[in-house]
């Protein structure tokens, strides 16, 4: 019985967990519910991946209604890839969250925090699972509303401003998206993505569709913090509670990238320029700008969380570059970087969260020499930093390698040079962190610290270990990314 309901269980399990966590009103019980729910969700996600690899596309009709009338969930190689990533990160975040949340959030709000965390996960998984354009909007709002609350729960007063800023920007993004969906609905008379694709074939060159694509791309670009629409991201990541930052940095923007890829490739076709808008050229330009400008800004920050947040904006540039290249190798590289970046940024934010847990600060000045008292935590941060640079032996190298190959395949040799050159900026901001935490004399803060507890180290090292593992033996993630890229480009899975 369970096997046939897997696509919808993916959303029901975290949603049910969220409701039960809210009803429990007890911090520890809520955490336990969240842990079990996210473990079950991860099991469902892996089962789905296994079935998709065996059988191909899985379709599920909510309420038994035909796709013309109701909502259809469609899991293909692309969705399964994202779903596995999001649910695995969510599970590791839950292990990490208990100690970190107790230290950062007042006791009466802990149960609500887990409710919001699970709602956010349910929304993100829903975006990946649904095959309905409007349903994707609903899940986008579910995850966004939960995210605003999560950010606002940060203990810094600036967290409220950051959440409010994201609320405004996120709402604008969602509005633009829904306007685009409305225009598509007007032209095609359906909201089901599969049917939209069928009916669009006869509508080539329609001006409404050009406008729809513009609205959708800009709306989603706000959500995924594509440069220069990223202004909300650094504050949101820096001031949110550590556990929330881990989840958001590793999953939220990634799911937005998935949605963008879905529209650019599946809906608007492999040729991603529609009408008069050269989307791939614009996307390449913005991606390159993202690779350089926010990374350069990261070098001059003094808060490690802000450095990592700005670096995220830069790394998103590599992912969107992969989409813009729109060839098999480049797209594989982009999706692979999406996967690898989730792992490395998750490890990095977990490490800095553990530093905040012990030292109470993420200011670089205060953290000099902290590597001597918290060696395991800082070592994980260093590994993640090396992967951000793209050092061989880490997963970051593999994905950048594919991106460079993709750029060369597209005949854009200068782009390959820019990819390498932008990595030098990562050397600077990672190098600055590494120099301060390892090589300086320990400051007063650092001398009083102890190593982070095992509950924080374990998920952190699983991610850091995966970053190294997938840098040496990249077969599994490359296989997933390549089959996802094939599906997006319209080939057989």
């Amino acid at each position, binding site marked *: 019985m369970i096997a046939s309901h897997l696509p919808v269980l993916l959303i029901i399990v975290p949603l049910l967990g969220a409701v*039960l966590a809210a009803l429990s009103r007890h911090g520890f019980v809520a955490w336990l519910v969240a842990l079990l729910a996210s473990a079950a969700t991860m099991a469902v996600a892996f089962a789905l991946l296994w079935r998709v690899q065996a059988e191909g596309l899985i379709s599920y009709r909510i309420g038994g209604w035909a796709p013309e009338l109701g909502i259809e969930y469609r899991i293909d190689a692309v969705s399964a890839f994202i779903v596995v990533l999001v649910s695995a990160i969510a599970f590791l975040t839950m292990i990490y969250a208990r100690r970190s949340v107790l230290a950062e959030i007042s006791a009466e709000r802990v149960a609500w925090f887990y409710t919001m965390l699970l709602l956010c996960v349910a929304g993100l998984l829903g975006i990946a699972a649904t095959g309905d354009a409007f349903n994707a909007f609903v899940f986008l709002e579910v995850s966004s509303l939960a995210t605003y609350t999560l950010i606002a729960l940060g203990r810094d007063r600036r967290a409220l401003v950051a959440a409010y800023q994201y609320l405004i920007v996120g709402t604008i993004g969602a509005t633009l998206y829904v306007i685009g969906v409305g225009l598509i609905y007007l032209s095609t008379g359906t909201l089901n993505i599969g049917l939209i694709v069928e009916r669009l074939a006869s509508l080539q060159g329609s001006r409404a569709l050009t406008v729809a694509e513009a609205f959708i791309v800009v709306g989603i670009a706000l959500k995924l913090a594509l440069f220069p629409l990223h202004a909300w991201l650094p504050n949101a990541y820096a001031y949110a509670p550590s556990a929330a930052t881990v989840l958001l940095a590793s999953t939220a923007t990634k799911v937005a990238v998935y949605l963008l890829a879905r529209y650019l490739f599946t809906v608007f076709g492999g040729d991603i320029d529609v009408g008069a808008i050269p989307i791939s050229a614009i996307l390449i330009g913005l991606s390159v700008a993202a690779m350089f400008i926010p990374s350069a800004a990261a070098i001059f920050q003094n808060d490690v969380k802000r450095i990592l947040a700005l670096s995220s904006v830069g790394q998103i540039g590599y992912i969107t570059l992969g989409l813009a290249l729109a060839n098999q190798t480049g797209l594989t590289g982009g999706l692979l970087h999406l996967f690898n970046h989730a792992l490395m940024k998750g490890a990095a934010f977990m490490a800095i969260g553990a530093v905040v847990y012990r030292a109470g600060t993420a200011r670089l000045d205060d953290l000099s020499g902290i590597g001597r008292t918290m060696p395991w935590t800082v070592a994980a941060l260093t590994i993640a930093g090396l992967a951000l640079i793209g050092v061989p032996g880490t997963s970051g190298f593999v994905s950048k390698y594919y991106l460079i190959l993709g750029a060369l395949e597209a005949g854009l040799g200068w782009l390959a040079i820019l990819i390498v050159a932008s990595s030098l900026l990562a050397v600077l901001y990672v190098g600055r962190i590494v120099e301060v935490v390892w090589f300086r004399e320990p400051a007063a803060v650092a001398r009083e610290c102890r190593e982070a507890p095992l509950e924080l180290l374990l998920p952190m090292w699983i991610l850091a270990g995966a970053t190294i593992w997938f840098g040496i033996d990249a077969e599994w993630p490359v296989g997933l990314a390549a089959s996802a890229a094939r599906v997006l480009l319209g080939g057989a899975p």
Partner: protein
Amino acid sequence: MRFDIVLRVATKFILAPLLLFALYVQFHGDYGPGGGFQAGVIAAAAVILYGLIVGLAPVQRLVPMGLLEVMIPGGVLIYMAVGIASFFLGDNFLDYDHLAHDAVHGQEWGVFLVEIGVFVTVSSTMVAIFYAFAGRGRS
């Protein structure tokens, strides 16, 4: 406002019909305009009106915050329980065909039960928002 005789008497008159109208909109949702969302808002409006007239403390004795914190997730739970019940009847999520002896009655029952969940969550959320604004700066 608690000393304004006109408001107090008018409120007393209007509260019961307001709640009754909420129930009418709730149960008539199958046949005409209405449903759980609208009914929930009307019911919440009755509580909010009472709160505006008598003040926050008395209305919170009537509808305590603790009750709302159970009702908000509780409504979602009702909704989901109906959907999950379909699993055990061999249908997809939220497919109500086998909730009763035939598909038409099954759909009617399913929507009826789901709308109750909507009512519970919407009404309690509205009141909770009112409490949050009215109680600002006091706690």
